[in-house]
């Protein structure tokens, strides 16, 4: 059972206090987008072995959504960070690079 530190309240919460929200940093496509763009936005998700960026909510806690950078094979947590960002902050990317040199995720490296 995972533990993740909520970046908003600092509580190291266990999985039963959290709600998983799938892949992070999706860009919303609304009216005006092409069928292909909208299809990808709605349905296409990464399911990588290794470095992944995810959304979680501290639901039985402060209620805030946050992001986690995590390894899906070892379950190592590289860091958690604010939900109010369009991409992982440099500190998180550095933390991932330190542990998984050469990682890539979507167009991030």
């Amino acid at each position, binding site marked *: 059972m995972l533990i993740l530190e909520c970046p*908003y*309240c*600092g*509580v190291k919460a*266990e999985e*039963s*206090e959290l709600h998983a929200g799938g892949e992070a940093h999706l860009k919303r496509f609304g009216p005006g987008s092409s069928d292909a763009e909208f299809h990808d936005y709605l349905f296409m998700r990464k399911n990588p072995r290794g470095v992944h960026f995810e959304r979680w909510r501290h*639901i*039985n*806690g*402060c*209620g*805030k959504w946050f992001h986690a950078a995590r390894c899906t094979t070892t379950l190592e947590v590289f860091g958690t960070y604010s939900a109010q960002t369009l991409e992982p902050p440099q500190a998180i990317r550095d933390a991932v690079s330190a542990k998984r040199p050469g990682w890539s995720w979507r167009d991030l490296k």
Partner: protein
Amino acid sequence: MSDPVSALNGAAFSGIATVEEAGLAGMITLRGDLGSKGLGAAVKAATGVDIPTANKVALSDEGGAAWMSPDELLLMVPYTEVEGKLAALTEALAGEHALAVNVSDARAVFRLSGDGARETLAKVCPVDLSAEAFVAGQFRRTRMAQVAAAFWLDEGGVFTIVCFRSVADYVFNLLSNAAHPHSKVGVY
């Protein structure tokens, strides 16, 4: 108006700890910028306390404030004064983005006291309740068995537990069951 009635009318149970429904408490959910001076002053005026830091509760004789999230406080005031305090808060915060609502009746409040209080709570919450880890003034929102709940510990060693009114019965029975008189774990 008729006399307001709390969810369980002051039910109580005594085992390794004592569980008591605390009765109606005045509570206001306040959402806003916790760093704002105006909000700080309004909270102080309503409750007599400064805004607590993360995961803390600040208590005064007439009330207090608990840190719910980076943009939310739970203000505690005398039950009969809620509407007045709410009006004053709303007026004081008119110029800024904030939301204050009365949630007094949406909650049930329990006091948990006695030697086995920490162990009782540790049977239903995934929280480190050892004396080193959970100290007076600390406030925690978490899961209590299958429902959301929050609690704090005061200087007198009493836990105050807040949950939704609709599950008051469940939480009371849960805590009473966990405080079974022969269920002392013997670690806290």
